[in-house]
């Protein structure tokens, strides 16, 4: 057994006995980390589900291109070529004026409750175009619409409905706001965790001092504290992810009907795996950094004497 593994083993043993000797402060730190990670996790869940909802509603945005009555077949095929060359288009549906009129009459009947029967069809032929989901899809749609508008065969272009536009604005606002809140939240919770770890190390200054006095190397002093911090981070994040898993599955079963009514086919999302790992990693990192800085700072104070 070489010296490095020996040191590691001793440190691990020291860590375990330290934790046993300071159960209360250890548990308090773990609890603080668990709560903080839990808050961040819930926040992520909210954020992701809001995003998923937005995406699912966004799917419904479509572009309707009404054609002039006197459009020539060559103009029509030009138009189709434009559609085909646009890589962001997902599907395209040709709607004849007859079909459109039937649909229109049906919706009028359902909503206003009166039957239109004019004896002639005032509507033109049209194309219904759906776009692939992407970051800046709605901007792309409006640009593409502007382009089409200039096309000679196109009577008019209609896209989205007012509410989707408004709703999208609201969602983007929400996203921005939540992003800001999330950053603040993370910073705040990181501060809280590192303060707790700092306090718990603070109450063990005498121990650090003594270890140095009886000939411990700086790393021998630091490593068990750092291991402890890492363990706190690990334990804290595991506790809270377990708890969140429970909350998640509860919400999922409890709220399924309302979720279905909001967005059919949308699943209530848990934190996605990369973010799950990120949370665990983050809390380990905080445990590490906070304990490292605290011991380091305190040892600096001691060395200045």
């Amino acid at each position, binding site marked *: 057994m070489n010296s490095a593994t020996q040191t590691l083993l001793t440190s691990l*043993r020291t860590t375990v006995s330290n934790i046993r000797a300071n159960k209360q402060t250890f548990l308090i730190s773990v609890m603080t980390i668990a709560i903080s990670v839990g808050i961040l996790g819930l926040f992520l869940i909210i954020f992701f589900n809001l995003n998923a909802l937005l995406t699912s509603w966004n799917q419904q945005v479509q572009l309707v291109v009404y054609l002039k009555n006197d459009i020539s077949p060559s103009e029509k095929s030009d138009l189709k070529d434009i559609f085909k060359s646009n890589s962001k288009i997902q599907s395209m549906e040709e709607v004849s004026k007859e079909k459109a009129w039937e649909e229109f009459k049906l919706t009028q009947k359902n909503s206003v409750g009166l039957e239109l029967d004019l004896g002639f069809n005032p509507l033109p032929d049209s194309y219904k175009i759906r776009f692939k989901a992407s970051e800046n899809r709605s901007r792309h749609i409006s640009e593409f619409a502007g382009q089409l508008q200039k096309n000679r065969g196109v009577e008019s272009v209609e896209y989205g409905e007012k509410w989707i536009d408004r709703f999208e604005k609201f969602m983007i606002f929400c996203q921005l706001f939540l992003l800001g809140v999330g950053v603040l939240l993370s910073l705040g919770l990181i501060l809280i965790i590192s303060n707790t770890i700092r306090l718990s190390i603070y109450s063990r200054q005498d121990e650090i001092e003594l270890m140095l006095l009886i000939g411990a190397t700086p790393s021998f002093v630091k490593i068990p504290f750092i291991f402890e911090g890492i363990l706190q981070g690990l334990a804290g994040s595991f506790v809270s992810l377990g708890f969140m898993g429970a909350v998640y599955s509860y919400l999922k079963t409890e709220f399924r009907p309302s979720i279905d009514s909001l967005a059919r086919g949308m699943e209530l999302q848990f934190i996605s795996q990369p973010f799950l790992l990120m949370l665990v990693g983050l809390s380990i990192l905080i445990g590490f950094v906070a304990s490292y800085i605290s011991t380091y700072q305190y040892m600096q104070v001691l060395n200045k004497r």
Partner: protein
Amino acid sequence: MIQLFNVIKNYGSGKPALDDVSIKIEKGEFVFLTGPSGAGKTTILKILFGWEHYEEGQVLVQGINVGRLDAGNIHTLRRSMGVIFQDYKLLPNKTVFENVAFAQEVTNRDRKKIKFKTWEALKNVGLTPKKDSFPAQLSGGEQQRVAIARAMVNTPPIILADEPTGNLDQEISSEILKLFEEINRNGATIVFATHSQEILKPGKHRVIVLNRGKVVSS
């Protein structure tokens, strides 16, 4: 070999705690350090194991210039010393046994020997029955003996003892003194700060007397 050349130590305000102190202690010597309260005994010991800086002068311990050491290598100096602190400095969360064993763990000793050596050190100071007690469960004298055991357990070449018998009765004191003398016979250098006339009386060892930061007699 321990040498202080014209050391001046000033804690900040007022008169210096050590004022131009020069002391030479040979390897294997047994030296008492005495003097009234506040004379500077503890300060000298603290300087010897690198716990306090000094403003002027030179300090050599086993050929090491103590003033040149920094946080990264001071442990090499400290590992050559067993220190008995005036206020014991026991860890309240560790038992007597763990406190003594810890001094060996810190210096990365062979695990297998730790148990045996701890046991032996506790036997030397008569504390085997208290090995599983925590410091708060010990009498003052018992705590002091734990501190003595911890300083001795690594059989260091130098022992710095700061008032190690202040809370011990005469009988145990003289036993502890005998223990120090035995260790000294085995080659260790011992610097023993004390007030006790009873300990100093026999006159078997050199006595350095300090007063107000100055060496009065040596």
